[in-house]
């Protein structure tokens, strides 16, 4: 079942010809955390984290609550500024920032707007070409087309999560950060999520998703890593096996 990491040179079907969104580049990019530290007052969310993710890799991140998973994903998507250390994107000319899609615990959508209005708003903010068409296309792929004009407030947890993922894909990002995307999903949405992530991974996008131990999602990953108290403690690239990374993860 384990897929080896796709060779970067392999041809890329969908995202290749997608036009670069303003200065952000849609192509997948690698990420490099060098001695990243994030301090909230006296609490260290991240403590001297060194991690490198190659383009196209699909990394499953596990660890107890409060081990720094969410902070790592927020630092990667440039929402949070590290107190020390530096985040860089090898492979891109320095300073260029790739388009990054981020899905958090919170749905990051306006409940008093309809699904279509939400996607069109964020599409226009991102400056993508024909936000209306792109919004419909993404609603289609999230099988929410029938509920396009109803308020997000009326949506179920699964539908909101699917819409949140659609929002993250608006700028056709080469890098995706998913924070425990499976929480609170019914089986039907869970199946959809697994296929969608497999499809995105096969398109060669770089994906980092935090998961709670061995689960349906973690089998999609080409690499697994575990965080504890803000530092990397196990990494399959560092020789650990998938089982060892996840086994202790639940301690």
């Amino acid at each position, binding site marked *: 079942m384990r897929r080896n990491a796709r060779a970067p040179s392999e041809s890329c079907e969908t995202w290749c010809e997608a036009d670069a969104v303003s200065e952000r580049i849609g192509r997948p990019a690698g990420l490099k955390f060098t001695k990243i530290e994030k*301090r*909230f*007052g*006296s609490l*260290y969310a991240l403590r001297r984290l060194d991690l490198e993710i190659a383009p196209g890799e699909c990394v499953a991140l596990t660890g107890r609550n409060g081990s720094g998973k969410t902070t790592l994903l927020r630092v990667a998507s440039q929402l949070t500024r590290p*107190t020390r250390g530096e985040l860089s994107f090898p492979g891109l000319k320095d300073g260029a920032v790739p388009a990054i899609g981020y899905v958090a615990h919170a749905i990051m959508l306006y409940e008093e707007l309809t699904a279509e209005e939400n996607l069109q708003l964020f599409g226009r903010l991102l400056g993508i070409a024909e936000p209306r068409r792109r919004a419909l296309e993404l609603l289609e792929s999230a099988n929410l087309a029938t509920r396009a004009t109803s308020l997000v407030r009326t949506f179920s947890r699964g539908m909101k999560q699917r819409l949140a993922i659609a929002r993250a894909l608006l700028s056709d990002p080469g890098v995706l950060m998913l924070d425990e995307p499976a929480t609170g999903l019914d089986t039907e949405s869970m199946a959809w999520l697994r296929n969608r992530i497999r499809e995105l991974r096969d398109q060669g996008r770089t994906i980092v998703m935090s998961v709670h131990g061995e689960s349906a999602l973690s089998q999609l990953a080409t690499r697994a890593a575990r965080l504890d108290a803000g530092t990397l403690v196990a990494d399959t690239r560092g020789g650990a096996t998938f089982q060892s990374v996840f086994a202790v993860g639940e301690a």
Partner: protein
Amino acid sequence: MAKTGVYTFLVCVLMGVTAYASFYIAPTESTMGLVQRIFYLHAPSGMVSLMAFMISCIGSVAYILTRKPKWDWLAVSSAEVGVAFCTVVLLTGPIWAHPAWGVWWAWDARLTSTLVLWLLYVAFLILRTMIDDADRRALVSAFFGVFTFLDVPLVYGSIWWWRTQHPQPVVFTSAGLDPTMRKVFYLSWLSLTCLMALLIRQRYELESSREELRTLEQELEAT
């Protein structure tokens, strides 16, 4: 520690000399008489509080740009000292106004502006107690510190212009100071400025030892 000791001694001597000058060297003012001597504490305190608030604004801007905690300590220390000087102005004002003009509070331009200033910076200090995370508190109060300091000239300007629109008989600072009075005034200003520097330094030391304590606690946690 010796340096602070010597500096504290020097400030005390300077304050003593100023007090002596205010009471004995400066001539008694013709119209108001003895009570005018409060002027030598009241007026310079107002100016020194403005200086303290300017230092606080510099600290805030520096923190926003460099994110080093020491600038935040400077901002909060000088703001607190500024509020202390403002309180002195607001308390000595009525004590002077009552015997001289029979009113406890005179809506004189400078006194009113100092009152608004006091409200602004007490709000600044209260805001700091309302945010728990140290870095968030520092950044947010730095922004408010800049906002407040930008408001100060507008407050002084609008109240001064408002006061000239509705002139009022009671005049606080007797403009016509004779030379010796002016000298004593500058001496008092100098001594209060040195006192401000001393108090800011002392408050700053408190902040840095608080940080030291926090890092030590973390080390203990880590081992």
